[in-house]
């Protein structure tokens, strides 16, 4: 797998060094060969020309045979600085320049190439064509200046090539930096987008066309993806809302079916008990009336009557749950008065640890209801709230305010104008499992004897009979919030519409 921690700059330096390591020795070698060839050829050409001139001097001038003149001519070879050794052999007689550099002697050889012999002297032997003479001139030239020139040229070449290598690497690094800076900036922007900042634009501040085009393409893609993402999010939210609404409706339907079934049962049971209570009460009264005043049975008979009356009350409550209220009177009603009456009552009744807060907001619009039922409904909800707070105390808030539903409210709340009666407590609250059952008759979380379990069932019966909507929200340890929504009376909304029309016209 490729190593991801090596950047473009490092890669470029490594590649440049590798290329230079491979190519520079070769280039160096080639250049050195060329320089050396040029220098040595130049040397050889020069000394040969020079030697030819010396030989020509012996052939043309009347020198041969005259030792003094011969010596002078040979000395001139050394004195010009061209040669280091000069000798003339003429008919077996050798004449050597007195100025020859010490330590150099003719060994009978002749150099054809610069490097024929490894020593520092280059020997040339040229015959002299002059009648009566069998002569040849033998000259030695110092190779060291040429070797020094070659060495110096080699140093220069190596210096230049090393400088070139360093400079090219530096330029490569600078170029890479120039290329990668906009890419790094683009990468940073992309990371920001990936980490959630979807509105961050992807751009590269560069004049390099390819990088600029890449940034533009990425930005276009980002904008498109952000749009798609937002659309998907909206769709998901909408689906979640619809699903929540569906579940709430299902839950409401289940609850309603269960309560309907219980209502049917309660109605049937109530009928039977009511019928049997009549003879119990009448017979007990008959026997009681027949007892003398001091009869010990009187108390027992009164006990029968008390129990029968108590049963009568329980059945009455069950029937309240069973929509007894359907036949109650209905009238346009301002909820303020019955609600305030309950608040006054509860302020007088509640223990010191519980604060009763009344919160009536806005203009109370009339609803179609029955004041007695509203009273009973509010009392039952307040009683439930007080019992939920118990000895620990808390705050009971009774609120009344107009509410306009826009269709986004919980399931079952149609768009329209409502009056909202709200009873909130800071009591122990309920978990979802308990909330499922609170409206069932005889369901109670309280200890035996502390409650009949009919209070909220009666609330449900009243709400149903009035065609209102009951919403409950509760959190264990935090409290419970009951909301009852009453549709504002149609006449009122109609007249309001008329007023609006009048205002417009």
């Amino acid at each position, binding site marked *: 797998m490729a190593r991801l921690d090596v950047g473009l700059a490092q890669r470029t330096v490594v590649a440049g060094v590798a290329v230079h390591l491979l190519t520079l020795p070769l280039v160096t070698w080639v250049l050195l060969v060329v320089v050396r060839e040029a220098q040595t050829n130049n040397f050889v050409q020069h000394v040969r020309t020079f030697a030819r001139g010396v030989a020509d001097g012996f052939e043309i001038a009347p020198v041969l045979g005259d030792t003094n003149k011969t010596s002078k001519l040979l000395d001139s070879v050394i004195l010009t600085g061209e040669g280091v050794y000069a000798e003339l052999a003429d008919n077996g007689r050798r004449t050597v320049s007195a100025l020859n550099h010490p330590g150099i002697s003719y060994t009978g050889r002749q150099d054809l190439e610069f490097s024929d012999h490894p020593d520092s002297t280059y020997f040339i032997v040229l015959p002299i064509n002059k009648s009566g003479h069998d002569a040849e001139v033998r000259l030695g030239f110092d190779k060291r200046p040429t070797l020094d020139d070659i060495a110096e040229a080699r140093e220069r070449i190596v210096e230049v090539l090393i400088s070139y290598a360093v400079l090219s690497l530096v330029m490569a690094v600078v170029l890479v930096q120039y290329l990668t800076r906009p890419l790094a900036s683009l990468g940073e922007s992309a990371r920001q987008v990936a980490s959630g900042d979807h509105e961050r634009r992807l751009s590269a501040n560069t004049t390099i066309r390819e990088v600029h085009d890449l940034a533009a393409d990425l930005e276009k893609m980002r904008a498109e993806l952000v749009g798609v993402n937002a659309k998907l999010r909206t769709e998901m939210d909408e689906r979640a809302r619809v699903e929540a609404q569906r579940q709430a409706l299902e839950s409401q339907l289940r609850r309603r079916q269960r309560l*309907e079934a219980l*209502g*049917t049962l309660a*109605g*049937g*049971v*109530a*009928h*039977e*008990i*009511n*019928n*049997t*209570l*009549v*003879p*119990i*009460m*009448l*017979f007990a*009264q*008959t026997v009681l*009336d*027949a007892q003398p005043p001091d009869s010990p049975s009187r108390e027992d008979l009164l006990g029968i*009557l008390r129990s*029968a009356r108590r*049963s*009568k009350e329980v*059945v009455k409550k069950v*029937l309240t749950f*069973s*929509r*007894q209220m*359907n*036949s*109650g009177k209905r009238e346009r009603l301002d909820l303020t008065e019955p609600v305030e009456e309950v608040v006054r009552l509860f302020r007088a009744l509640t223990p010191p640890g519980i604060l009763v807060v009344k919160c009536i907001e806005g203009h109370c619009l009339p609803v179609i209801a029955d004041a007695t039922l509203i009273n009973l409904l509010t009392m039952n909800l307040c009683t439930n709230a007080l019992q939920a707070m118990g000895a620990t105390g808390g705050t009971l808030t009774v609120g009344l305010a107009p509410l306009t539903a826009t269709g986004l409210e919980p399931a079952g709340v149609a768009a329209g104008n409502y009056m909202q009666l709200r009873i909130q407590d800071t009591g122990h609250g309920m978990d979802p499992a308990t909330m499922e059952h609170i409206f069932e008759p005889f369901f109670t979380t309280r200890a035996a004897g502390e409650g009949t379990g009919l209070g909220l069932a009666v609330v449900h019966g009243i709400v149903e009979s009035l065609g209102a909507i009951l919403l409950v929200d509760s959190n264990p340890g935090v409290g419970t919030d009951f909301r009852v929504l009453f549709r504002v009376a149609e006449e009122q909304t109609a007249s309001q519409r008329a007023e609006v029309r009048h205002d417009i016209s």
Partner: protein
Amino acid sequence: MTSPEGSPEDRSQTSSTVRILVIDDELDLLTALSGTLRRAGYRVRTAHSAERGLALLEQEAADVLITDVIMPRKSGIDVITTVRTLYPSTRVIAMSGGGSFRASDYQPGSITTSAYLLVSERAGAHAVLAKPFEASEIIAVVRQVLGP
């Protein structure tokens, strides 16, 4: 104290001139109620069905009819309607304990005591009484329908 009746349809032996007919399908209730009314001085006849009650009325008119609303076959509402038509001078008291005839008749809006009593009033009952009631209550209602 008057001894219990052998049959719910026996004539009362009281000397009162006010004749009351009680119709209810509950026999214990019929016995208890007729006993209470007799001790209050009324002449009481009883019937355990609507049909039987109407037959007794044909034999002899009644000043007051006390009828249950919910009864099998023929309901108290039918009885009230018939009596108000055929015997306009008879004062009618309807009584109901709610509930339905049969489970299949269940209508959410019509199972309650007050609903039945409301229907009874509309059918022509002069007074209505929710079951259960005490002796004093029924006697007060009887006196009320008879007027001063």
